[in-house]
């Protein structure tokens, strides 16, 4: 039997010279490194290689409640003044898209993502349907984290695949603009392949955001949404 501590923190293959160090990649890995320190394993690997560990390796097969359910928190984010390109080809300012008065539900996806993004997009599609007539009042936004590949045409095709309604838009732009948006909402993880499954929701401009980490069912998203609006 593998000791518990070994299962929690697996040594990640070291990143050689020429790749960003964990410190560059942002906050989450800092937490992982601290976790490694707590459990007292493989620190020498991290120290020697400059690599980082992945703490959630059992999420797939082991039904540990701590990692399988979504976690919710209330956060404040400053919407950055970046230009993005909407799936209809129009250049838009992110603050304008977010501050038209409607509540916002936001996620970050890319169209060649095989695993998590299609699930998140299916949930957005279900969410729209379950809101029924109320769907007209919300603005669903999906920002590409692979903007150079995800042209407006590819995003429109992706939106069609998920039967996106009129209130759901996809956005691309320059790589810098996408990374700025990702950083502003604390979802930037150094690249699309280390994508975080995060859904964000805000009742109105100026209000704080509800941040949902992990997979959330459409029914729960509807409940979260209605509660957020009721508290507005």
């Amino acid at each position, binding site marked *: 039997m*593998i000791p518990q501590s*070994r299962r929690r923190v*697996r040594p990640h293959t070291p990143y050689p010279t020429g*790749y960003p160090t964990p410190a560059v990649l942002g906050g989450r890995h800092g937490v992982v490194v601290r976790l490694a320190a707590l459990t007292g394993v493989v620190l020498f690997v991290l120290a020697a290689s400059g690599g980082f560990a992945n703490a959630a390796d059992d999420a797939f097969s082991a039904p540990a409640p701590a990692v399988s359910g979504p976690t919710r928190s209330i956060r404040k984010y400053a919407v950055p003044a970046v230009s993005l390109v909407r799936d209809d080809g129009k250049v838009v300012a992110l603050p304008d898209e977010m501050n038209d008065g409607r509540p916002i539900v936001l996620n970050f996806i890319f169209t060649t993502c*095989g695993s998590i993004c299609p*699930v998140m997009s299916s949930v957005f599609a279900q969410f729209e349907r379950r809101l029924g007539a109320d769907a007209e009042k919300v603005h669903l936004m999906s920002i590409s984290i692979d903007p150079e590949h995800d042209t407006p045409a590819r995003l429109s095709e992706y939106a069609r695949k998920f039967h996106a309604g009129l209130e759901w838009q996809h956005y691309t732009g320059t790589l810098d603009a996408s990374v700025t948006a990702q950083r502003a909402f604390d979802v930037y993880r150094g*690249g699309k392949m280390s994508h975080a499954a995060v859904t964000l929701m805000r009742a109105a401009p100026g209000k704080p955001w509800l941040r949902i980490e992990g997979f959330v069912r459409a029914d729960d998203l509807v409940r979260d949404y209605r509660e957020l609006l009721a508290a507005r």
Partner: protein
Amino acid sequence: MSAWRLALAVLAGLALSGPATGAPADGVGRSIYLRGVLGSGAPLEGTREAGVVTTGADAACVNCHQRSGLGSVEGSLSIPPVTSEYLFHSRAHDATEPVLPYVESLHGNRDPYTDATLARAIREGLDSQGRPLSYLMPRFALSDEDMAALVEYLKALSVRQVPGVTDTVLHFATIVTPDADPLKRGGMLDVLEQYFVQKNLFPLKPSPRMLTSGKTQYSKSMYMANRHWQLHVWELTGPAASWRAQLDKHLAAEPAYAVLSGLAGSSWAPVHEFCEQNAIPCLFPNVEVPVTAERDFYPMYFSKGVLLEAQLIARTILGPDNHPAAGAVEQVYRAGDSGEPAAEALAAQLKGHGVTVHSTVLAARAQGHGVTAALRTAALRKDARGQALVLWLRPADIAALGDVPAGAATVYQSGLMGGLEKSPLPAGWREHTLMTYPFDLPDRRGVRLDYPLGWFSVRHIPVVAQQVQTDTFLACSLLADVLNRMADNFVRPYLIEQLQALLEHRLITGYYPHLTLASNQRFASKGGYVVRFRDPGGTALVAEGDWIVP
């Protein structure tokens, strides 16, 4: 389904696939795994929690478990390997046992599957011990026959015997076509040979077994240094139609694990097909005209070459609103050179936008000759405004433009073919000429070239074709990084998958501002600049705008 019925169905599946179709991988199991198509031809359908239904190609196993079946790690999610050794192997009692090759997404915390519990996992979403699988894993209502075919496929998937890999040697090939530029050929081979020499400086000892935990008594990079890298240079001869047979012959004589770099003139399609059909990773050849088959898996390119330049010119002529800035476009290229497919690509993109496209074709193999006379004829049509001249020409022809007046037309020049900032474009042309530049600008990429150029200098490698040589060095170092990451799991599709996962984290990207790949992405750098010369002489460039991703 009981185990014996499943076993019978597996046998039936084996009998059906038989020797006529080759490996069992060609059957229904492969179709379900890769394409989401059932034995009946109907689309595979999977249901996730809360009734989220996924069908067809979107439901195919490959989306998450990957072509290799070795799974993946995406963010905090870890998708486990599903090849037989990971599914059916007895539980790893101790992570220091050399039982299974290390993969990042390994889940050792369960009993081995049986055919029956595996079928239950796929249909009901319960693991070998009856615990629910992740929400990401759909539940698939497969018939007994389809299930047997799928299980059979998994059992044959990514068996560890990989051609070109021995206990002590990794064999790589590089491919040079007969129409490749001899100067670039020498420059590329110098870099490859020196890189391999450096790789093989480490003393060769028997390889220690990698443990399931991913560790050896040494670090992983030292482990990899224990295998020699051997380079096979496959020089093709004769017409392109004969290359495929030559490649198959080379492969039979010298089994290579992967193709590293490579150099061609205007035709790479036979090599591309060779790589895809033989399932050999084909990493970043120096080709100006790659094959644009985004759904292929094994060939990987740094950029779309002259086809990207054609897109950049089309984008500039048509503008963001598709209102053409030119009513007529004259393209000049030499027969049989890369300009020919590039001109075709540009003409195709301008079609339907009210732009008239003409071509002036220069005779093959007469670089520097005939260009003046041909351009005089071409330039006659260029006396009005709103016209564009597109030069798909090499430096020798560019230098020969000398006494031809540029006229009023906007001139577009392929930077890749014309020598980038070193293009000998005569002074009189510079004011009117926009150059496509599918790389980062010289002043911005400098820092990313310091290391390879220093490396060349220390090893006395003459820099004869800087971009080709630094791209070759980049391909070598990416391969080394990916192999370290793969530990001793040399399954070929896994090389591609790990490269896709690693590439975008790379900071030292040579001529390119950044590189990224994914499934269904074959070109790591997606855009370029349109630039003009700042001065009547010299190499200083001014970008006409931002980085364009057409």
